[in-house]
């Protein structure tokens, strides 16, 4: 099998315009006969649902939350990029495109990324028209800041709540369509499976979380906007309920999963305090602008930070990367932190954590300046940890944050199952092996507002899709299979909670498939995960029944999928013996310990096709061709 990315011909800058023109349109009178199912109501899902409904389609939108406003897009703090060049600092669509491709370590598709940069401006216009209160200058125009090491100021923001404000914008557009009857909203309904008939996605099977009702929904097309899978690590900055179930079950139905090993680990998070830790909290990366990162030189030194003299401190980033120092890129900063902790220099009661020290900055700039710059972050840190960062150094540690991998999609955002579209973090398309700061919000909204609504029309017009009968064989069978998974979980009646297995899986993934991966470790993980999975199916305890609000059952289903998905991730990491972006293979580094890409061997997308739970999936390669940018190697020495 091979995968056709359907990248339109022509010069890079004209591809999207030409493609839109060549796409077939659905006759307005036929649009209302077409029913589109959108799973997920975050930035991508809500924006797509609203826009499709505005176009005249019947839309059914599903979320497992109690309200579409709760999706984890809401937690993005930093901002959203757009190539507006309002600051006249030399930004352009091409520069945003180039920065994104380079930031993705040359593992993304040029055409997709260019389109993303192209529509980025429209997103800001759209959001402002919806009433998103972006920060403004005194003249009344929009304010920008530079973010994530970008050399231009192209990031738009709304205090520290950009994600929430953008989501509320999309949610308001969605609410408007709900009130007009154009969108039917299904809250507290979780996807169990995708129904594929005759090679096309025909609908979904869902479970109502309150009543346990298993229902069939048929549609002309299915859109997954179900987010990323960072929670495979158990501890991540993702919300507690984020999961891989929708994308993984689509994978089991034949959609290819692309680059699952590309995960982004954020260096500045609050470290875990013990086994009961439920998740990790992200602190803005901007803290590294003025904070100095260090650990005690002596391993196991448990003295309080302020009583360790200057000459017994190891400012390891400044030592190893003299020119970038504490501002070394995310992956390098993260990896170095883990290295020093693994070597026994970690700080805090648990020994996982490094100091981020502001005492020098406070001495140099004064406490007031630091307060003005980071006051809210210091406040948040103090609320969570009880420590005062003005007096004692902060403790930080890396945590999984975003997953670049996801379901494989072509230029039209359609997966390898015709009729199944995937948008937002759930797909793999735009970030390559690493994501730039403030680009996640941009991609989610680009897909939902400006890309999918065009490309889905072409599919519906070309395929002349008929909505299937939910009493048909395909629906019946898929539903039975979904029910049997539930019954199986309920019948184990073991002794351990699903969270226990999730934590154990997280430890394996973090240890062997985290910031630094190597052959031996990944092989070990590939041995341990199936064992853990077997133990899960023999010893998990899921009390209650299917006919009521049963959170134990919800969680157990998600953990069951993570237990299979973890294996796929490790397999992908094992086969990619280069280091690129968020994926660092210990075997592939320069003499200085820098990640080493192998463009000759690995300039491709790894798309995995499911063959059976205990079987090795098939690897399908989509070659990446770079016609417009030159593959460069970064150096942070």
């Amino acid at each position: 099998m091979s995968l056709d990315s359907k990248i339109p011909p022509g010069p890079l800058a004209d591809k999207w315009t030409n493609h839109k023109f060549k796409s077939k349109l659905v006759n307005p009178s036929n649009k209302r006969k077409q029913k589109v199912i959108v799973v997920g109501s975050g930035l991508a899902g809500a924006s797509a649902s609203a826009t499709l409904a505005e176009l005249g389609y019947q839309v059914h939108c599903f979320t497992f939350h109690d309200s579409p406003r709760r999706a984890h897009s809401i937690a993005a703090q930093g901002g959203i990029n757009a190539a507006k060049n309002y600051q006249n600092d030399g930004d352009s669509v091409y520069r945003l495109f180039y920065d994104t491709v380079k930031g993705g370590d040359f593992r993304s598709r040029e055409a997709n990324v260019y389109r993303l940069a192209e529509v980025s401006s429209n997103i800001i216009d759209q959001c402002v028209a919806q009433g998103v209160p972006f920060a403004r200058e005194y003249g009344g125009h929009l304010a920008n800041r530079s973010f994530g090491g970008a050399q231009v100021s192209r990031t738009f923001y709304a205090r520290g709540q950009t994600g929430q404000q953008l989501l509320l914008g999309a949610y308001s557009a969605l609410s408007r369509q709900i009130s007009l009857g154009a969108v039917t909203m299904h809250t507290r309904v979780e996807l169990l499976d995708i129904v594929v008939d005759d090679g096309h996605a025909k609908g979904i099977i869902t479970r109502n979380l309150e009543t346990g009702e298993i229902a069939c929904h048929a549609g002309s097309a299915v859109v997954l906007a179900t987010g990323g899978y960072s929670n495979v690590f158990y501890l991540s900055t993702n919300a507690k309920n984020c999961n891989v179930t929708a994308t993984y079950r689509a994978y089991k139905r034949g959609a290819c999963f692309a680059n699952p090993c590309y995960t982004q680990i954020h260096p500045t998070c609050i470290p875990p305090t013990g086994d009961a830790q439920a998740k990790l909290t992200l602190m803005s990366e901007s803290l590294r602008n003025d904070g100095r990162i260090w650990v005690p030189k002596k391993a196991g030194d448990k003295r309080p930070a302020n009583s360790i003299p200057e000459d017994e401190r190891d400012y390891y980033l400044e030592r190893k990367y003299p020119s970038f120092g504490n501002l070394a890129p995310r992956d390098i900063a993260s990896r170095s932190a883990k290295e020093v902790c693994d070597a026994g220099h970690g700080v805090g009661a648990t020994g996982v954590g490094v100091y981020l020290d502001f005492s020098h900055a406070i001495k140099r700039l004064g406490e007031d300046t630091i307060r003005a710059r980071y006051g809210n972050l210091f406040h948040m840190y103090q609320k969570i940890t009880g420590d005062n960062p003005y007096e004692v150094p902060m403790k930080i540690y890396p945590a999984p944050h975003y997953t670049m991998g996801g379901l494989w999609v072509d230029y039209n955002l359609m997966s390898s199952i015709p009729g199944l579209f995937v948008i937002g973090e759930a797909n793999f398309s735009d970030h390559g092996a690493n994501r730039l700061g403030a680009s996640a919000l941009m991609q989610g909204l680009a897909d939902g507002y400006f890309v999918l609504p065009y490309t889905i029309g072409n599919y519906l017009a070309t395929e002349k899709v008929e909505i299937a009968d939910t009493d048909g064989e395909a629906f019946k069978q898929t539903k039975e299979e979904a029910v049997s998974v539930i019954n199986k979980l309920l019948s184990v009646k073991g002794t351990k909670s699903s969270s226990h297995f999730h934590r154990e899986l997280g430890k394996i993934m973090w240890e062997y498939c985290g910031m630094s991966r190597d052959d031996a470790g990944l092989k070990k993980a590939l041995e341990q995960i199936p064992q853990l999975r077997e133990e899960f199916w023999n010893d998990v305890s899921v009390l209650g029944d299917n006919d009521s609000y049963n959170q134990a059952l919800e969680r157990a289903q998600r953990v069951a999928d993570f237990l299979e998905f973890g294996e796929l991730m490790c397999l992908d990491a094992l086969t990619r013996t280069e280091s690129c972006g968020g994926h660092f293979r210990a075997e592939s580094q320069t003499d200085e310990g820098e990640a080493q890409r192998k463009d000759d061997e690995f300039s491709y997308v790894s798309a995995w096709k499911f063959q059976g739970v205990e079987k090795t999936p098939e690897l399908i390669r989509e070659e990446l061709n770079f016609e417009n940018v030159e593959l460069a190697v970064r150096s942070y020495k």
Partner: protein
Amino acid sequence: MFCLCTGDRKVFIYLQTGGTSNEWEHMSSPQSFFSSTIGKKVVMAVTGFLLIGFVVAHLVGNLQVFLGAEVFNAYAAFLKSIPGPLWIARIGLIVIFVLHLYNAFSLRKIISAARPVDYNKQATVQASAASRYMLHTGVVILLFVIVHLAHFTLGYLQPEHFSKTDALGQHDVYYMLVQGFLNPVYAGFYIFCIVMLGIHLSHGISSMFQTLGFCRPNVKNKLELAAKAIAAGITLGYISIPLAVIANVVTLS
């Protein structure tokens, strides 16, 4: 399409972008202002404001008791000499009072229905006692008004002091008042009720500003202070009369 809109003291041009026509038309027409919770609150605020006006005017009248029996009785006689305006004011007051009461109970019904199962553990973070017991103080005030009318307007209580006339042949209101407050039960009841009125007003006046939409924080803080001062002034003003009677400052001689 360009349209010129005015809003909030600023004029600006709004560039309208798309939007389905007749967007809002599919919805039913709005409920009437007076049946909405905000409308009812506004009625409470406006009637409350008018009642405060009465309370202040009445206080000004009453304080004339300190000027002696002649002045005070003449004032009462003057009011009686203009039956037209007096009755208009009385009927107006009754209507306002009834509206205030009706809306209070109507809102109370909505409020009770809004939380059918109450918290097992009750806690209050910042709500003042006055704000939490508005209904209770209000009911006390209602009882007081009835008793007060029965006492001084209709003469059902202490009828022996009610029918007296002074040297000028006017109704001796001064005598009735002093006799009334010399009775410790009536005086105590009066003082208690006026304190309740003060508590009611201390929240009621500031609440009125909020309900009527005075929202600028710096103005609001000043209004809050003003509200407390007005409530305190009214309370002290009224209480001063029975206290003066008890302390023999206002006497029959």
